[in-house]
């Protein structure tokens, strides 16, 4: 029997999908502003942030009402908890996009340091993680979610590499410090974007399988049971 409650859950899911699409576009614009030196990509990021913030509050309110009024259990409960958590990840993703464009303004006016060459690749990985984590959540695709988790290591490694190279630049020439710090900040933002995507992918696995894979909890459980 199709429940009236299912319609409400479906509406919630659609709302989250709209917000995901918005956050994805923001990150794409933010990355483009830096990588392609596209000044026009900056202002839409600020405009969309307002929308995302509003959506975050609306989704939280819907979730609270759905819980208070329907006493969800099992898969329904996990779904709503997953939405609440993903909702806040999306809002933070949007914040990271804003953080990037804040630095983009300055970066666009100066000559790039060599480690900048690694930024496009780093951004591509971060963006793909966001895209796929959201897909995995919306489409309940846990194998895709697990792929996203693996990509996070790659992203972290790239970020560490960028930071180390920038340290060298600064050690060699103190005039590079300001630019290096900006780039470091951006690489840190990209890394965090990966972290948020990772969290969303973990939420996807939790919603579908009911398994908590955060902090390698599943591996620890497996080790205990051996």
């Amino acid at each position: 029997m199709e429940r009236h409650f299912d319609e409400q859950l479906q509406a919630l899911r659609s709302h989250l999908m709209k917000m995901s699409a918005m956050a994805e576009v923001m990150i794409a614009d933010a990355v483009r502003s830096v990588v392609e030196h596209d000044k026009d990509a900056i202002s839409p990021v600020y405009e969309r942030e307002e929308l995302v913030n509003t959506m975050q509050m609306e989704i939280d309110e819907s979730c609270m009402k759905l819980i208070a009024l329907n006493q969800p259990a099992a898969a329904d409960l996990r779904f709503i908890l997953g939405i609440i958590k993903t909702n806040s990840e999306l809002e933070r993703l949007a914040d990271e996009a804003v953080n990037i464009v804040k630095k983009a303004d300055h970066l666009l006016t100066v000559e790039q340091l060599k480690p900048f060459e690694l930024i496009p690749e780093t951004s591509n990985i971060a963006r793909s993680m966001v895209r796929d984590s959201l897909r995995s959540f919306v489409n309940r695709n846990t194998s895709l979610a697990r792929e996203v988790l693996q990509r996070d290591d790659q992203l972290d490694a790239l970020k560490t590499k960028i930071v180390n190279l920038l340290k060298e630049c600064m050690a060699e020439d103190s005039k590079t410090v300001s630019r290096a710090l900006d780039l470091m900040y951006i690489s840190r933002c990209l890394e965090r974007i990966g972290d948020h995507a990772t969290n969303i992918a973990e939420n996807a696995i939790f919603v579908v399988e009911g398994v908590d894979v955060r902090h390698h909890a599943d591996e620890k459980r497996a080790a205990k049971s051996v």
Partner: protein
Amino acid sequence: MSTVIRVENLDLFYGDFHALKKVPMEVLARHITALIGPSGCGKSTLLRTLNRMNDLVPGVKITGSILFDGKEIYGPGIDVCTLRKRIGMVFQRPNPFPLSVFDNVAFGLRVDGRSSRRQIEDIVEQSLKRAWLWEPLKDRLNDSALSLPLDQQQRLCIARLLAVEPEVILMDEPCSALDPISTSKIEELMLELKKDYTIVIVTHNMQQAARISDYSGYMLLGEMIEFDATDKIFTNPREGRTQDYISGRYG
């Protein structure tokens, strides 16, 4: 959103007992309004005033105002039979007549005496369909209604009401005799019916009120403590007493 029933300053006495105290309530068309509160708070009494079921109680005294469709239902010139046809009631225990499924649903139409046999057949089919009983019962129309499982009996009582085309359906604990699966069927049916009908339900089951109603009134000792949108009542009630009841600290 139009108001179908407006209750104002309603006082009701059973002899010396002051059962309803200056109660206000507004029932909106095509919405579900739930009355909740601990036993003896007056919620069923209030429900029963809405189609004058309390008239049958000896020693009852009612003052205040209940406007239905703009008219005072306790005023002069109100035909109680017509009122109860327009505002029907479903009770706690399913109460089908000891007749066949078909005759139960056709009963009101036959009493009314205005429908042809063919019309009655059509209306019975439509009413059973609306109560989601046509599929399970279409080949059992001549079976005794008393042979049906309880949830089907309750939906048959709803079909019996629908046959006489009420505007408002009052439900007094309609699921309290039913198991959770049967309860959820009735709840889904109510959500479907509210597209065309106005429903007022009394329930002991707060979660039921939360799941299905649009507006809720919390009653205590004959008073309407709080009446508001159900999502407001269940997420951020205005009154501490409502909060205590909703969260299970009282009642």
